[in-house]
C-alpha cells in the first residue's frame, strides 16, 4: 500500500493585502491507497480548498503536494488535466452534471476526453449506470431525475474512468437521509474494489462508512483518528450529542473578531506587514481560545 497523497506544510491564501484570507494553514496530511477518509469541520474551515488542492484543481500558495509520489507543483495544466481524467473522480455537492446532456452522455464525458470511440464509451457508461442502478434512466436528462438519482449519476461519472482516487465534496449535502444512505452505501461498495475515497461531510453519522476521520478548523487539521467501519467515530459521536455551545467571549467578539485573527498568521510569514504591532497584541488571546476549542473537541 503506497502513499497516494502527501501534503507537507500546505497553505492556501486568497485575496491580496488587507483582504487576504488564509484558507489552509500549513496542513500536513498523508493518505495511503485504499483508505476511506472522512473530512469534517465547520463551514469555511478549508475542507473544500483542501479537496481542490488534492484533486489538482487548485495549486497551494506554499508547501509541497505530492500526488502518487509526483510533485504537483511541477505539473503543467495539461498534465494535471490528464491526471484528473485518468486517476481522479470528482463528486460534488451540487452534482455538476451538464444539464443539456443525457445521463448516458454525462457519464461518458470523461471517456470522450480520453479519445475513446463513441460506441465503446457508451457501452462503458451504460455498464457504469447499471452498477449504480440507473440503467433504465440512460436517456433521461438530469433535470428529470431526483437528487439522489442525479448524485448516483455523478458517482457513475466519477467512476467511469476507474480512478484510483475519488474525491467527494459533501456528496450528501443536498440529499435527504435515505438518498444519503444510498450514496454512501455505493461509495462503500466502490471502496471495497480498492479505490481510495476522500469525502467531506457535516453529518457525524456518515463517519460510519469511513476508516479514518480528519477534523479541521480554521484551515488546520485539529484531529486525525482511525475508526472502525460501521461505527460512528468517537469524536464525531461526542459532537453529535453535545449541544454546540458558544462562550460569552465568542458572542462579544463576533464573527469579525474571528476573521481578523486569520490573516495575521499570513502576515507573520511576509516580511513587511504594516499593522504588525496591533495584531501581535491580540495574539495571546487567540491562542488560548484555540487551545480551549481543541480541548472541547
Amino acid at each position, binding site marked *: 500500500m503506497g502513499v497516494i497523497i502527501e501534503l507537507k506544510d500546505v497553505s492556501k491564501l486568497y485575496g491580496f493585502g488587507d483582504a487576504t484570507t488564509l484558507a489552509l494553514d500549513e496542513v500536513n496530511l498523508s493518505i495511503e491507497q485504499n483508505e476511506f477518509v472522512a473530512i469534517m469541520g465547520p463551514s469555511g474551515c478549508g475542507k473544500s480548498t483542501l479537496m481542490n488542492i488534492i484533486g489538482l*484543481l*487548485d495549486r497551494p500558495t506554499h508547501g509541497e503536494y505530492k500526488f502518487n509520489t509526483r510533485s504537483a507543483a511541477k505539473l503543467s*495544466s*495539461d498534465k494535471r488535466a490528464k491526471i*484528473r481524467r485518468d486517476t481522479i473522480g*470528482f463528486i460534488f455537492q451540487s452534482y*455538476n452534471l451538464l444539464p443539456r446532456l443525457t445521463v448516458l452522455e454525462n457519464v461518458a*464525458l470523461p471517456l470522450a476526453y480520453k479519445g475513446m470511440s463513441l460506441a465503446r464509451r457508451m457501452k462503458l457508461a451504460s455498464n457504469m449506470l447499471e452498477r449504480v442502478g440507473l440503467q433504465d434512466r440512460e436517456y433521461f436528462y438530469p433535470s428529470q431525475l431526483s437528487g439522489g438519482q442525479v448524485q448516483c449519476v455523478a458517482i457513475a461519472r466519477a467512476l467511469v474512468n476507474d480512478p484510483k482516487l475519488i474525491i467527494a465534496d459533501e456528496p450528501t449535502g443536498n440529499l435527504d437521509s435515505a438518498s444519503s444512505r444510498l450514496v454512501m452505501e455505493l461509495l462503500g461498495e466502490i471502496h471495497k474494489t480498492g479505490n481510495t475515497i476522500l469525502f467531506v461531510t457535516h453529518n457525524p453519522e456518515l463517519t460510519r462508512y469511513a476508516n479514518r476521520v480528519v477534523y479541521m478548523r480554521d484551515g488546520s487539521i485539529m484531529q486525525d483518528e482511525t475508526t472502525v467501519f460501521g461505527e460512528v467515530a468517537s469524536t464525531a459521536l461526542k459532537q453529535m450529542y453535545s449541544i454546540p455551545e458558544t462562550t460569552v467571549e465568542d458572542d462579544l467578539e463576533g464573527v469579525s473578531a474571528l476573521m481578523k485573527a486569520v490573516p495575521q498568521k499570513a502576515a507573520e510569514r511576509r516580511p513587511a506587514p504594516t499593522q504588525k504591532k496591533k495584531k501581535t497584541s491580540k495574539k495571546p488571546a487567540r491562542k488560548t481560545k484555540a487551545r480551549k476549542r481543541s480541548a472541547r473537541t
Partner: protein
Amino acid sequence: MSSVSRGNVKMAITALKSTKWRSLFTMLGVIIGVVSVVTVVGVGEGIKHQVGGQISQLGRDLITVRPGKLVNRGSAGGITGVNLFTNNMSGGSLNQQDLARVRQTNGVRLAVPLGLVNGTADDANGRPVSLPIVATTSDLPDVLNQSVTTGGFFAPDTTGQPYVAVLGSNAAQTLFHESAPLGRSFQFMGQTFFVQGIFNQFDTNPLSLTTDFNNAIFIPYTTAQTLTNSNTQLYEILAKPTDSKQTSTVVGAVTNTLAHAYQNQEQFTVLSQSESLAVTNNILDLLTRMIAGVAAISLLVGGIGIMDVMLVSVSERMHEVGIRKALGATNRQILEQFLIESTVLSLVGGLIGIAMSLLIDYLLRVFTSLTPVISWQAVVVATIVSFLVGIVFGSVPAIKAARKDPIDALRNE
C-alpha cells in the same frame, strides 16, 4: 481526438438549438454580409453577361467613335488603360466633318452619326415626355444589325417630305400606349412628326454606356440640322468595315485619319465592340469590387457580432467549463469545443446567406431587368469566408474559456 471533435459538433449544434433566437440574431450579421457580397458580385457578373449579349447582337465588327479620350493606347494599338474619370463631355464633340472623314476612311463600308437633339417631345395629349431624340441617317438599322419590322426606317433623303420619326419599342409605349402607333403623330420643337416605324426590341443592359435605343426617338439627321440651324452635336459615330475580319485595322485607320485631322490632339476615342466590351468589363469589375468591398465590411461586422455573443456565452457557461476541466478536459479540448461552436454558427449563417442570395437572384430575375449570375466560385468563396470568420472571431472567446483556471471556472455559478 476525432470522436471528441465529432461529439463537439453535435454538442455545438445542440447548444445553438437551445438558444435558437440568440443564434439566429448572431448569424444575422454573417447572413447579411454573405447575401450582400454574393448578390453584388452576382449582379455585376450578370451585367457583364448582358453586355456581352448586347455586343454580339450588334455585331463584333461595329466600330464606335466617341468624343473625349476614354482609353490610352500603347504603340501596338492595344488598350493600356481606361480613363474612367476624364470628363469626356468637355473633350469636345464630333461634327459633320468627322463623319465625312470616317466615311472616307479606307475599309469603312458604312458610317452613321448619332446626335442628341435637346428638347422634349409632346405626346398626343400635349403632355411633355422625356425621351432622348436621336438624329441619325437611314443606314442605322444596317449598322446596328437591327430590323424595323413594324413600318419601316426613314429613307436616305427626306427633304420635302413631312417630318418623320422611328421609335424604339419602349418609346412607342411611352408616347402612345400602344406597340404599333404607325401613322400617329407627336409634337417636337413646334413641328409635327409622323411615326414611320418601330424598332424591334434591342438587347440592353442596365449599365450600358450608350443611349438606350429602346427608349429613343430617331429622327433624320437632315431634319435635326434644319431644326437646330445646322448645329446638331454628334455624341457618337457608328461605322461598319467592309470586311469584318479587318475590324482592328479599320479602327487604326479611323484613328489615324481623325488624329491627322486634329493634328494629333486626340479628342476622340475609336473602339471596336470587343474593345468596348473590355472597357465596360473593366469599369464593371471596378464597380463590383468597390461595392463588394463595402459589403464585405458587413461580413466583418457579422464576425464581431459572433465574437460578442460567444464572449457572453463563454462567461455564462464558465461553470460548465469548470466541470469539463474537472473531468479532465485539457485547455486544447475546451478551445476546440468553443471554436467549433462559433464556426458552426458562422458556417450555418453563411449557408443561410447563400440560400437567401439564390432566392434574391430569382426575385431579381423575375421582377427586374437584371439577370444576376451566381457562380459556384462565389458560393465556395462565401462558404470558406464564413468558415474563416467563425474561426477568427471565435478564437478570442475560445481562448478565454480555455485559459480559465479550473477552480475559478467551477466557482462561477
